């Protein structure tokens, strides 16, 4: 899309995320590899504020489709905190082809790091191709159930994002947290109700998953459903081993 004057870029609540309002209205992230898209998404060029020489800089944003990404849907749904910002280290479980991972890599920037874990080989190949251009993404084609297999690649992280759509998702997340998540770090989990228990009511499934997290020393902070972008999905944000509350 050309013609920067016709676009308004609004800073989002979450650092590194923006809202573009033009002929379209879209969630966008600042493209760390200008001129290149990852999965055929739209790019929006805008004239930025003038640089030190007084010449206006060109900024490029990539559209982040909430109908394809649970994290984007959660952001537009009004999540309080995604716990990802420039400089964060994120472990991303269930990276698939790396479409959302590329946006997370835009958010954390060159100082941050995204460890993207995907088990299937075919999407794993796309993930690796994406990581070739984005040096802050470390692709790992392994089973997230066995964090031991990739413990040599992953350091301590600030946040774990999980979108694995498996019945034992809570167990997978806690296992990875025990290995890689710092105390007081956060998990952001996307839950697909029908993947956990297709017979129970979605609300009950979410509640059960939150219970499971609490048993694993997570303290839930918030939970939100993803309508109108997804049906019977929820995102739960929790803290891992929070510091004990000081008495006043």
């Amino acid at each position, binding site marked *: 899309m050309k013609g920067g004057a016709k676009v308004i870029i*609004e*800073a*989002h*609540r979450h650092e590194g995320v923006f809202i573009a309002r033009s002929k379209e209205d879209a969630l966008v992230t600042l493209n760390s590899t200008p001129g290149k898209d990852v999965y055929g998404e*739209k790019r929006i060029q805008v004239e930025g504020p003038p640089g030190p020489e007084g010449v206006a800089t060109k*900024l490029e944003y990539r559209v982040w*489709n909430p109908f394809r990404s649970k994290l984007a849907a959660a952001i537009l749904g009004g999540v309080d905190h995604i716990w990802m910002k420039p400089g964060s280290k994120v472990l991303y479980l269930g990276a698939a082809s790396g479409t959302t991972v590329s946006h997370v890599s835009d958010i954390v920037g060159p100082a941050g790091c995204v460890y993207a874990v995907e088990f299937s080989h075919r999407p794993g190949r796309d993930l690796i191709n994406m990581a070739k251009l984005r040096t802050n993404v470390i692709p790992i084609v392994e089973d997230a159930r066995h964090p031991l297999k990739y413990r040599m690649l992953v350091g301590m992280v600030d946040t774990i994002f999980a979108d694995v759509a498996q019945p034992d998702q809570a167990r997978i997340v806690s296992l990875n947290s025990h290995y890689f998540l710092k105390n007081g770090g956060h998990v952001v989990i996307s839950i697909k109700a029908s993947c956990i228990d297709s017979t129970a009511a979605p609300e009950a499934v979410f509640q059960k998953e939150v219970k499971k997290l609490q048993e694993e020393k997570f303290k839930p*902070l918030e939970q939100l459903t993803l309508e109108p972008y997804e049906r019977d999905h929820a995102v739960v944000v929790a803290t891992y081993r929070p510091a004990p509350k000081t008495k006043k």
Partner: protein
Amino acid sequence: MPYASLRNAIPRKTNKERSQPAARKKFGLLEKHKDYVQRANDYKRKSKALASLREKAAFRNPDEFYFAMTKGQTKEGVHRVRPAEASLPHDHIALLKTQDMRYVTMKRALDVKKAEKLQAGLHFLTEEAANKHTVFVDTEAEVETFDPAKHFGTDPALVTRAFNRPKLETLETPGAVLGVANVGELKKVRKAREKAYTELGERLKRSLSFKEVLEHMQVEKNVMGKGRKRKVQEAEDGKPAVFKWKRERRK
């Protein structure tokens, strides 16, 4: 005919018919023998038909009866015989229906694809939230005193704006909004956006109705196929009728 071949051996004079004399040009082309034969044949055929109809009318039985009479009716003074049933064979009709189905499938795919493309850039950023957001707090007292504006650290006016509740410190930074154009430009852009949303809505709606049509066509195709069946449920609110086939043992 004797000597026929010999007669044919000698070149005969071809009789040329004269054309219309210049003095009689105003009467048009002069009729030739060929034309006369055609005209005469036509006249004979028509007079024969008329004669036969007259004869039929003369010999008509006033008490005659045909079953077609029971199907015929008079509508606004005009007698109508019920038209014959569709005369195409069964398998031809079945083939035509599969082609119709393919056309509808293609049209639907077009709409779905275009809607997807539009949807990639139109994220339904509206004030009213369609989802449910739960915030977990530690004590009952905190539930009582929960203040969304304070919790989200934003301006109270922006609390309902779920897609973006900027923090107060974000609002204060100078680069929070980039690329503001003039008011006229803004209006034009907004109009274009509203148009795009309308188009998206229409395409989504149409792809749904195409889907319904396809379901009906599929049932129709199945019904035209083999096997004994009976209707289990009537068609209602957009859903096709449900048929049940008699089970047949496979060899």
